């Protein structure tokens, strides 16, 4: 399992469109991916879950991936969240 704490750089935070993009990206991998904010953990492949966290810009979140392609999943999702 890989885990990383990161700060959201997206200027708007995870609004609906970026959230959908994030979830779609997560769904490309077979690993289980989880996103955590303030102790609330959701499945990163579920759009409603991700949006229910209401993640804003500059907030710290924890990303967790477990499975055969966890490294790739982590890299690509981190790039997405940390892009501006």
């Amino acid at each position, binding site marked *: 399992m890989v885990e990383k704490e990161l700060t959201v750089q997206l200027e708007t935070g995870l609004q609906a469109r970026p959230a959908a993009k994030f979830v779609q990206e997560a769904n490309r991998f077979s690993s289980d991916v989880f996103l955590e904010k303030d102790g609330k953990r*959701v499945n990163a*492949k*579920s*759009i*409603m*879950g991700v949006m229910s966290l209401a993640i804003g810009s500059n907030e710290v979140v924890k990303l967790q991936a477990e499975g055969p392609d966890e490294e790739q999943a982590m890299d690509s999702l981190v790039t997405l969240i940390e892009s501006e």
Partner: protein
Amino acid sequence: MIKVRTKDLIERFDLELVAGKDGVHREIVTSDISRPGMEMAGYFTHYPKERLQLMGRTELLFLYDLKQKEIQDRMKKLCTDVTPGIVITRGLDVPHALVEAADHAGVPVMRSPYKTTRVISRLTNFLETKFAPSTALHGVLVDVYGVGVLITGKSGIGKSETALELVKRGHRLVADDNVEIRQEDYDTLIGNPPNLIEHLLEIRGLGIINVMTLFGAGAVRNYKRISMVVHLETWESDKQYDRLGLDETKMKIMDVHLPKATIPVRPGRNVSVIIEVAAMNFRLKRMGINTAEEFSNRLNSVIKDVDNKEIE
């Protein structure tokens, strides 16, 4: 974890603030409530000062038998710097010494017009709910024939689509995709949706839909006790699925074990109907009718009869 403050109690139960208004922002850290009877008698060694204190007729009447000096001393000891508040019941008069001590230490003294036992049970219920351990799960919660069914399974297996069909068939959606669960008591799990996504359902290809505006207020619920778990998974030909229903598999959420059914999903299998039947069968079992067990007993007795005849 949300913090509970004395102010919340005053608002929720419409209590009258008699003294110590500087302390209304004090935090309540436990759901236990203390009735300081022993303390009134002067025994403060094990005084649970961090708890909410509740004084009824017994405690207050006892005070009147004491000397003024003793009353002042004990009221002072009662109002510590961590005591979240003192509740006086039955609308009784608050002793002058208590008002003084409370104002001095900043411990809110509140008054309720109701009987002590009633106040205790309502306060305890309120605090227990607030302090209940909670978690969040990936799944969909639906009220099917009054049974709270938590549908779990991998992303894309069709949980939301199943929920939509259940709603269409007259059942109620509680939460889609992300269910907040709190444990009340030792055996009860209550699920509710996160505020932001209440009444919403996401269907691939359609996007986000509002179940309440589409299907009406009768199609949603804000919370529901979870009674069983239905796990959806893709059909694997070499996996053994339950064929009899004699053994109940369980799933543990926090400290509670819930009955769990694993339903294989395959084209042509109508999952919503299966879930409806699973919910009805669950109710039937709770009413004492266990079809699988009854059938098994019947089979056993027939086998026994055959055996006996052969011996004859």
